[in-house]
């Protein structure tokens, strides 16, 4: 996993609540057995005017000009600004793989669905929860200010606006550590292999049917 320390980047707004993982990466692309290459199909049904299929050349497909990601002013954005309950629905990690593959490293929203939120951290993407009023203000600022960028400092847990306003955010200490260091959490867990074995031994005594 890539480390995440700080990021200064362009912000793209996605102004709708309950953006579900089916919308982030439609199901036909879940058939891939790979982990990469989902970026061109991120938000496929909103981004293109035709129907997309896996293994297709996406370069010639008709784009939906109304969709923010297709607008010139948002090209190169690495921070996605969303609304409530972002990432709801299916557990597909492909949703985060698609965001990451497209280039996003930060998603800011007032709330996230749990599984999506977890999946972000596993892939070097930082989901940031800011309160509704702040997110509202950011939407206004992004829409009225071409080239609007934010700076995200994970170590300090602060989002800074171009005018210098600082918005602190919460992040779990363990996840922060993993992101900052780019750590593989399987390796970390395996450092506790003895504790896992000890647990299994005790449980086997109490509830042997769990190990049949």
């Amino acid at each position, binding site marked *: 996993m890539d480390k995440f320390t700080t990021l200064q980047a362009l912000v793209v707004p996605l102004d709708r609540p*309950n953006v*579900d993982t*089916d*919308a982030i990466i*439609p*199901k*036909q692309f*879940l*058939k*891939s*057995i*790979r*982990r990469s290459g989902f970026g061109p199909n991120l938000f496929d*049904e909103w981004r293109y005017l035709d*129907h997309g299929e*896996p*293994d297709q050349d996406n370069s010639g497909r008709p784009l939906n000009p109304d969709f923010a990601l297709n607008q010139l002013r948002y090209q190169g954005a690495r921070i996605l600004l969303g609304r*409530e*309950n972002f990432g*709801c*629905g*299916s*557990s*597909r*990690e*492909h949703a*985060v793989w698609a965001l990451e593959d497209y280039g996003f490293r930060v998603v800011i929203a007032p*709330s*996230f*669905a*749990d*599984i999506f939120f*977890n*999946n972000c951290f*596993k*892939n070097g993407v930082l989901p940031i929860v800011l309160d509704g009023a702040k997110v509202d203000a950011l939407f206004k600022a992004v829409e009225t200010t071409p080239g609007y960028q934010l700076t995200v400092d994970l170590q300090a847990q602060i989002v800074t606006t171009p005018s210098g306003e600082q918005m602190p955010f919460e992040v*779990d*200490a*363990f996840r922060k550590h993993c992101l900052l260091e780019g750590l*593989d*959490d*399987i390796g970390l*867990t*395996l450092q*506790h*292999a003895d*504790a*896992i074995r000890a*647990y*299994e031994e005790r*449980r086997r005594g*109490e*509830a*042997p*049917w*769990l*190990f*049949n």
Partner: protein
Amino acid sequence: MAGKTLYDKLWDAHVVRADTGGTTLLYIDRHLVHEVTSPQAFEGLRLAGRQPWRTSSVLAVPDHNVPTTERSAGVTGIADRISRIQVETLDANCAAFGITEFKMNDLRQGIVHVIGPEQGATLPGMTVVCGDSHTSTHGAFGALAFGIGTSEVEHVLATQCLIQKKSKNFRVRVDGKLPAGVTAKDIVLAIIGRIGTAGGTGYTLEFAGEAIRSLSMEGRMSICNMAIEAGARAGLVGVDETTIDYVRGRPYAPKGEQWDKAVAAWFDLHSDDDAVFDKTLVLNAADLVPQVTWGTSPEMVVGVDANVPDPAAEADQVKANGMRRALEYMGGSCTNGRIEDFRAAAAIAKGRRVKDGVRALAVPGSGLVKEQAEAEGLDRIFVEAGFEWREPGCSMCLAMNADRLEPGERCASTSNRNFEGRQGQGGRTHLVSPAMAAAAAIAGHFVDVRAIG
């Protein structure tokens, strides 16, 4: 000290190690695997040179991509090349890592959330995970069950544990007796209508009260299945005689002396009387009516006797017969693909005919559900009424296989998600109970199932 909730008990019993930062290493008893969310996890194991920690905890099955039409040609007969590769990859990974798999043409194959309970692979008191959000289904057994992403699938394969944070406790109590014609599906849709699709985010939902207790395991599974649609990763129902009766004698269930010991332990799997919940909702069963979703989110739901709120244009489309030619019926899925669901739908279909122009699919949740239904003659009732009787799988719930809606088509579906394009681009889904779906297929529009004898 206050008592414990069921969730607290399940959590505490699985803590391997608690970190100061509030994260916990939680032990996983059962890991269910399917073809869509596992290839990259096995690949990760391989790249890191790791082996699964405990293969006996893993049970795999292909379900999302399998055709629900004739399958005698086996995996090579899957027409869609990419679907086929995914199923073949699961077969190869299970063989390579020594994992038990019910392959596509195994009688026991079916939707992962149907076969876990059916096999007794899901037991009370377990932690159950699967790379699928509807893993919440298994909470009906008093098991802590939740969906995980692919990185977590790899993490569980490699370590038998997950790094977790405890969620909060939310109890939904449904008091009183359910009126006739109102099913488990209607209860859960009504709950989601009340609390919204994010109402349960950050919580584990426990469903309690007389109306829940009176439900069969199938009904409890339908409710827990949709806990995720209310934003909760896990749903729970406490263990009682109904739970034990369902589990008894299943292939993976404990036997003999172990069984007695297990049952004694399982009876403690309910919230203590003095347990404290962070949030509570109380509904009265007598107030509930059959539900129909009208929008593109499960919270956009109304009673069949009510008017659809704004946008007003939807109202006539849903309530009147605007669906005529375009209606499809889809019966099945991990929400409602169990024997009891087909009995309920068959009771409506019996002696009636699917409306001309409506295409009606009945897709059993597993090979064993199909076999049971056929033994009871339900397949004949469906076929005579003009339904297609299919092979088990996810089918049109997600439309990853060949079953899907065409643009402009509407579907009365017994599944769990009505998201835009879920059942095929440009199609529209209305979530309902099996009986309501069958009644819609016959009438060609939504009708109140309580008015049908």
